[in-house]
């Protein structure tokens, strides 16, 4: 039942087995995605409580990592609440073949964090919320949870191996939410250096392909 979404859209899964569920390795692969699917399909409060227990403190930490304009002391708790309400409300639309739960929740958190900071620091009416930029069509090629887990494990491992200055710049960009220009000012580096250092870090992690390798 919890996997009907996955079954229905996957072209590779055998159709003759109506009670097919995720195979065991997929089940083991990513418990957070399983829990999120269960919240979406069954309004499963226990699953939601588990997600909250895991992600709540991380979201609060994520909020506190960004001391940008508009930051206020209550941002952490507000962000936890706002993100988890969105997770509960949007879980039914979660597509496990597009992104893992962790990545999905990250995108919700990133969008919420930006919008909350903007609302505090901006007096103008903003017609678009950050999440309005993120309504892309679903992909034709589904990605299995197992594939996603593998690629996330690789991200984790390669991040741990980055030289200090590359690690630092990625943390500024993603965790602290600093634009390239802000990072350049804070680190006292030319903008061009920041840009190339960010790219180098992501090339090293094989997230992006270096120009030389493409040619």
């Amino acid at each position, binding site marked *: 039942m919890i996997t009907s979404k996955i079954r229905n859209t996957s072209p590779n899964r055998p159709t003759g087995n109506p009670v097919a569920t995720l195979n065991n390795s997929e089940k083991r692969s990513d418990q957070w995605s399983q829990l999120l699917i269960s919240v979406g399909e069954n309004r499963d*409060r226990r699953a939601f*409580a588990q997600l*909250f227990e895991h992600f*709540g*403190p*991380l*979201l*609060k*930490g*994520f909020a*506190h*990592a960004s001391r940008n304009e508009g930051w206020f002391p209550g941002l*952490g*708790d507000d962000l*936890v*609440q706002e993100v*988890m*309400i969105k997770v509960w409300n949007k879980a039914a*639309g979660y597509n496990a073949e*597009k*992104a893992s739960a*962790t*990545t999905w*929740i*990250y*995108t919700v*958190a*990133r*969008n919420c*964090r930006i919008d909350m900071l903007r609302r505090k620091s*901006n007096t*103008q*009416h*903003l*017609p*678009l919320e*950050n999440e*309005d*930029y993120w*309504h*892309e*069509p679903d*992909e*034709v090629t589904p990605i299995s949870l197992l594939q996603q887990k593998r*690629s*996330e494990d690789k991200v*984790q491992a390669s*991040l741990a191996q980055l030289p200090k200055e590359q690690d630092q710049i990625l943390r500024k*960009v*993603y*965790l602290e*939410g*600093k*634009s*390239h220009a802000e990072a350049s000012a804070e680190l006292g580096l030319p903008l061009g250096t920041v840009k190339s250092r*960010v790219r180098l870090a*992501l090339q090293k*992690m094989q*997230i*992006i392909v270096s120009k030389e390798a493409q040619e």
Partner: protein
Amino acid sequence: MINSTNHHPDENMLIEFSAGTLETAASICVSAHLHYCSSCRAKLLRLDQVGSQMMSEAEPIDVADDAFDSLMEKIDTAGKAKPEENTPSDDLPFSVNKLINTSLISKNWKRLSSSVDVARFKTGQEEFEVALHKICAGGKTPKHGHEGLEYTVVLKGSFSDENAVYREGDFLLRQPGDVHQPMGAQNGECICLSALSAPIVPTSPLGFLMKPWLRINPM
């Protein structure tokens, strides 16, 4: 959607978009491009995984003991979530469609030159003028230079300049000093989203209502 786009935002733009630090006007243009471009969407997913890993490595901070209970109380009293608003989009990118529905300065196209019409948006920032431009079939625009940055995304039809033909979803960045002469395709009108860094920054919110500033000099 078939991925037929040839011109993409550069990697640093995608990275800033993924981290949520790209400024508003550029974000609108990147989001419009993503609607058409599956290869950039795939890149973005990988970049989001980096952000997601970073969030997972954030220093966790304890939430209050009753945080979950009060969250559930909030959810229960709020009742059923209203379904996602889904305005019919005629296949336009979500963000552009929403701007068209909520934030056009005037509901009508304004004539900019004999072959170009413009419809401007109010986007809550004052660095860029964000607008739709419509070039009529075969329309020739006056040759013009750029003093600031301009992002362009083709939404419908195609146009060409001295260098290439630009089709649906293509993303272009013009730098200060670039000179070009876009021409609409012969077989139909072309509609583009553009964001142009304005040389004049209006000082009051009502500045948007000031005399429209002509981006193309009809000489």
